[in-house]
């Protein structure tokens, strides 16, 4: 019986199953591959249109008027910004609104 060409053709499926096994192992080890979380400052979350993280940080007591460091490239030409500046730079009015309702000063 000449079955080996069929098994060779199925090699990518073995890779798929190994990859999935690795995903499960990494998840059990607390380092899920597709779910790696980068901690964000309030300004970064606002710039990256992350409304969920903005809401969480505000609920945890983050100051909406403070200046926060931002990674290079997150807010054009800036290494620090207020959340409001960052949200405006990202063009996200809903996040601007959320910040204003949470006490951010428009000035």
């Amino acid at each position, binding site marked *: 019986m*000449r*079955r080996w060409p069929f098994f060779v*053709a*199925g090699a*990518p*499926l073995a*890779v798929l199953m190994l990859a999935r096994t690795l995903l499960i192992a990494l998840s059990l080890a607390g380092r899920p591959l597709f779910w790696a979380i980068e901690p964000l400052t309030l300004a970064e*979350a606002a710039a*990256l249109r992350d409304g969920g993280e903005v809401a969480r940080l505000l609920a945890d007591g983050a100051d909406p008027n403070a200046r926060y460091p931002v990674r290079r490239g997150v807010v054009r030409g800036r290494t620090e910004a207020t959340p409001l500046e960052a949200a405006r730079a990202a063009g996200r009015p809903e996040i601007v609104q959320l910040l204003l309702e949470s006490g951010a000063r428009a000035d």
Partner: protein
Amino acid sequence: MSGGESERLGPLSARQWAFVLAAITAVAIADDLLRIPVQVSDALEEILVASRSPSALASFWRATFNAAYFRPFRIAQIKLLFDLADGHYWLAYRGFHALLLVVFVLLFTRALRVRTATDLVAAAFGLAVLTGLHTFRTLIQEAFPINHFLEIAVLALGTLVLAQGPRRLWTDGVAVLLFVVAALTLESGVLIWVVAVSAWTFGLRGISARGLAAMTLLLGGYFYLRFVTLSVGMPTLAERSSGYLFEVLEPAQLQERFGDRIWWLRAYNVGSSILSVFFSEPRSGLFAITRSWKEHQVIPFQVIAVVSSAITTGFILAAVPKAWRALRRTPAAADGDGTGALVGIAGAVIVASAVLSFAYTKDDIMSTAGAFYAVAAYAAVRGAAGALRNRGRATAAGLTALLFIASATWMSRSLGIHHVASAAAFKTRNDWGLQPGQWAREGRWPSQADERRLLERLRAEALAMPAPNPKFDWPWADRVWGD
């Protein structure tokens, strides 16, 4: 090796290995599901309605006689889980979603009836198709707050397994029960009847003619109740936008273009739904990849989708003569390995699902069809293995190359589901961050104190679940795994 035996491969049989692969697939995807918060759109309102209802039975009756849609069991289930949650809503709804997914993958694997090493490789192929097809993505991305389309797919696969098995005293009763639950959950529930009847037609007689007669009577009763007694109507052109060739038409445009020949749009929806399962194009009625190609802006995932589907459909078409023979010769034993029956049943389910999409095309509606396409893909690829053995070297080399390309492209599509799940988590959490403020501004914040508490609890649960920001994805991820 005799009929029911499974080839031994090291410590386990081929059948047991197939379930190991299924378990790996199911656990990896269920792990993703359990990281997604409860959905906001199309789900929160349902949860609030459930919170107002005194009991699941009351929800069932209210939905039977008051709703615009006839889906009473769907509403009752949401209420039932709400009560069982005892405040842990994410755990109840997402836990049930993950459980449904695990059952879905295991039933799919059971339906393949793996016996040999060749079957095992074909089963791995089938699992990749099952979890790589675009119709599967909506089963993971969305939940309202239960994904009832996934539930229908589970019940349809369960019916297939019943039809494949030996006839037992309780088989007909269980099949009828599955039909009743499905039909009262979603309109797509009538697919259970299609699976049972087509299985019988193609020689799988686990469900008896008496059982089929009972299901047919109930189907008639369902239509009478829905359309005559309760007068639940059909969707109209004014309800939603729809893809048509290379553009998405808004309701007003649909009315203007198809108002006097609505049958043309209906026929287009049915045809495009069938094509979408077989070729991953068009999607929701829109020939997106063709449009991208015309504009010289084809994205890698579009090529991967069409190539994988076209090759697999080619293998399925090659197995159609077997389905024809299975149709003409009964019982199923005449069909040998059952390839013809599986391909034939899949064809019936795909066409029936497309007919149900006549009013509007949507990946969700075709999700059961997608699962049966994967069943057909398994049978067809297993058949191709036989062809590899019997043909000349050049043909065998060509088939091997095609199978390799199909395996590699389905591997990519199937892995993409993890990327899709993390993107769904980000979107859902974003909705929870921003939408409550918008409701408050629009005066839509609940006035009842207990509903406000419920909403705040759901929001707190969602915000406490970290979701990866797409900014930090691999730069190529969306081009290869996007949608």
